[in-house]
């Protein structure tokens, strides 16, 4: 199954450089970080306990990097469908704090058309409300 966004686009509309639509997430809350800690099993207290965060020199709790990567994973599902995802690689470059609103963005780096279908190499990133890229990466999706 192909996600609704890329399925609706022709080969010409997915050439290198093509800009993909945005996925805006709801603002990150402390409650979400507690839920994500529980759901993911990442109990590092710098994400849920301000006291621990301050002890290591932070102003307060910061979001799990993996939460922003999960947003990008959702972005790929929305773009291409969960069955199509072959790779997602990210670097966590800026901290994300409660109250930040992340938007997932992307563009096509390369489209390869072969016997196995179309393979897209995408540049994807999550940026905050100040348009700073917080998590940046690359993904490969296979569209048969």
């Amino acid at each position, binding site marked *: 199954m192909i996600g609704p966004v890329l399925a609706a686009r022709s080969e010409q509309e997915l050439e290198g450089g093509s800009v993909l639509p945005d996925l805006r997430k709801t603002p990150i809350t402390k409650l979400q970080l507690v839920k994500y800690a529980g*759901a993911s099993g990442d109990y590092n207290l710098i994400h849920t306990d301000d006291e621990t965060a301050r002890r290591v020199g932070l102003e307060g709790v910061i979001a799990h990097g*993996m939460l922003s990567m999960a947003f990008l994973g959702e972005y790929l*599902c929305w773009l291409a469908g969960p069955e199509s995802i072959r790779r997602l690689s990210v670097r966590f470059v800026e901290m994300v704090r409660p109250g930040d609103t992340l938007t997932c963005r992307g563009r096509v780096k390369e489209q390869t058309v072969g016997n196995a279908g179309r393979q897209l190499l995408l540049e994807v990133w999550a940026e905050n409300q100040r348009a700073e890229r917080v998590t940046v990466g690359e993904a490969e999706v296979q569209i048969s």
Partner: protein
Amino acid sequence: MDQPPALSRDLIGRESEEVLFEVERGAIRKFAEAVQEQTPECLRGEVAPPTFPTTFRMTIPGLTFDLARVLHGAQEYRYERPLRAGDRVRCRLRVADIYQRKGRLGEMTFLILALEGRDESGSAVFTGTTTAILR
């Protein structure tokens, strides 16, 4: 403040036990809800979100550090197919590399962990690579 001892490069190659994880519908839904996923298959608990392998937690004998001093630098996942509810995956975590490098925060230790997930017949389902930075 005490500097934590750098990790010994002797740990490179060390592995966890193989651990069998069952992908549970409820765990998928809980994860999807925490992330505020909108993907219908994930919200129904049928297909796991792409970063779900992060829930497969394993320990490697001898590898210890102060969790509060670890930064997650980078993460990669490669997939043969998505994980689905009911999948039983055999996972193993390995220390792929340890090295020192000067960064923005001074001398830092980089720890590279390789995760491998196979189905019950032994075929690869996904791999993961974690770059952790110990400051």
